[in-house]
């Protein structure tokens, strides 16, 4: 870490990786890692403390003893490494890191691989924690082979990526810019200011958009069918609207980043505050169209309309928070989750109308107050 190249690479790539994948890593932490470290099982009064502990550690022990568990652990490590490999490879194509091609490449191959190995290790810190934990617990319970192979496997993955990054910088000059218009098929379509982030999604961010829509619709459909007796209940539809809004956070964050980077020129445009807010409403009405259509199809019209109102107003409010917090992802996610819980509580008390009005007004106030101050 003391070497200037290593410091620069960690700052540019590892930090960028964590910033861009905060949502993904938090999801991984909540869904997988928390259970992996310690699975709390209820009603174990018939077991001794030692047996209870072994049950709680069942997942981690399986990952170093059972073939399926080992396969899943190895697969997880490999997929994470592949994801980081794709991120770094794509990042090395960006204009702001091209200086690495004519600076870092002056060092020997070995020195470059060393620096890249540190970067990869920093990126893989979650894997190191999981792997280290599996190693310790496995050895404590008398499993030796797989736990001892975990560091070897992680080091091999690290070297694999480090050598690949070094090769990318040395062997390939910058690939010629893609000259094809990614939106050639939409050439004739009007592109008003409010719609530009939508086109950006179509041109360069189709996968994040599809994942967001998929996860939003899946969670909404799941909630709807889990409570078959309450499908016309305004509170359930409100909960579904809230869940749909929560699922948009990654998209909202990307919208903010896009506006800051590519729509700076539009700040000189003579649009009044209400027009700018109207443009936001128009954008998110379009982006939320799949969820809106589904809600209106499956529910009674009046309740469906309320759910749509809640979905749209909460999404707008979550978006407007970024004008205050800017690109600080972690506090943003914390705040959004906390607000979601609060809104859920109010919704269960039947205060859906109030939530819609409150969020729409708060979004407008935040938008007007903080957008100009950025």
């Amino acid at each position, binding site marked *: 870490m003391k070497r200037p190249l290593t410091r620069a690479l960690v700052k540019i790539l590892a930090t960028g990786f964590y910033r861009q994948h905060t949502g993904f890593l938090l999801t991984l932490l909540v869904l997988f890692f928390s259970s992996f470290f310690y699975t709390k099982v209820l009603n174990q009064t018939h077991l001794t403390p030692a047996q209870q502990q072994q049950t709680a550690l069942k997942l981690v022990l399986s990952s170093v003893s059972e073939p399926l568990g080992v396969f899943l652990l190895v697969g997880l490590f490999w997929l994470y490494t592949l994801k980081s490999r794709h991120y770094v490879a794509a990042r090395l194509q960006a204009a702001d890191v091209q200086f690495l091609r004519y600076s870092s490449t002056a060092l020997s191959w070995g020195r470059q691989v060393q620096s890249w190995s540190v970067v990869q290790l920093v990126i893989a810190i979650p894997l190191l924690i999981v792997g280290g934990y599996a190693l310790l617990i496995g050895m404590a319970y008398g499993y030796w082979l797989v736990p001892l192979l975990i560091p070897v496997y992680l080091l091999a993955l690290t070297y694999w990526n480090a050598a690949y990054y070094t090769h990318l910088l040395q062997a390939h000059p910058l690939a010629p810019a893609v000259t094809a218009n990614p939106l050639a098929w939409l050439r004739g379509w009007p*592109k008003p200011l409010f719609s530009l982030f939508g086109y950006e999604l179509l041109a360069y961010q189709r996968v994040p958009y599809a994942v967001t829509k998929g996860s939003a619709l899946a969670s909404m459909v799941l909630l709807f069918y889990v409570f078959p007796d309450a499908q016309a209940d305004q509170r359930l539809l409100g909960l579904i609207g809230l869940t749909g809004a929560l699922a948009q956070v990654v998209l909202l964050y990307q919208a903010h980043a896009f506006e800051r980077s590519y729509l700076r020129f539009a700040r000189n*445009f*003579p649009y*009044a505050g209400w027009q700018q807010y109207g443009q936001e409403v128009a954008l998110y009405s379009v982006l939320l169209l799949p969820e809106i259509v589904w809600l209106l199809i499956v529910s009674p019209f009046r309740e469906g309309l309320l759910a749509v109102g809640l979905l749209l107003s909460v999404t707008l409010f979550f978006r407007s928070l970024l004008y205050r917090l800017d690109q600080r992802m972690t506090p943003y996610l914390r705040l959004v989750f906390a607000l979601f819980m609060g809104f859920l509580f109010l919704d269960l008390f039947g205060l859906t109308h109030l939530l819609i009005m409150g969020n729409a007004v708060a979004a407008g106030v935040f938008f007007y107050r903080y957008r100009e101050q950025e």
Partner: protein
Amino acid sequence: MLQLQQFRKTYQRRLVLHIEDFTLPPAVYWLRGSNGSGKSTLLKSLAGIIPYQGDIILEGRWNLRQHAVAYRSAVNFAEAEPIFPTFLTGVELIRLFKAAKKAPAHQEAFYLESMQLSAYVHEPVHTYSSGMLKKLALVLAFLGQPRCILLDEPLTTLDAESLPILYAWITQQHQQHGTLFLLSSHQAFAGGTLPPVQELLVAQQTLQHYRA
């Protein structure tokens, strides 16, 4: 006429610019100053792109805070390093700017023709070189009926053949409409004819008239 009153700009509590009271009658101004002196910051503040403290008033009636729409309708800006959504074509950007600035129909034709941009204006901007992008940004800054045009480093990346064309645009706009120009540059405006240029200096965190 552009007035700055009690103007202050800070970045993370660090004072970058403090201009007590400064009035710029309609003219062509060359904004000088060393790197990091605050030229771009001043131009961005005047364009209404970044926040500031104090008052910026155009023609004695449009305060950027209180009459933001009228002010921004009358003040155009071209960044030193323009960035636009890469999938948009030059034509689509021109349409956006024309709609926002309420530009007359076909106003862009003259600028595109004279700067020889017509050939590639239908291509997406990610295919443009930095010089081509600069020319497009300059065209966009002349659209509408601006009373004030702010050009940050307009000469950077422009080829020698394009300089007299830009000077002719500035001269024509200033003489016909009395438009105020504020041009930041590290190099002198050579290679063409401009109206008399008044020199301003951004130094020691303030704005002053330049004296050689």
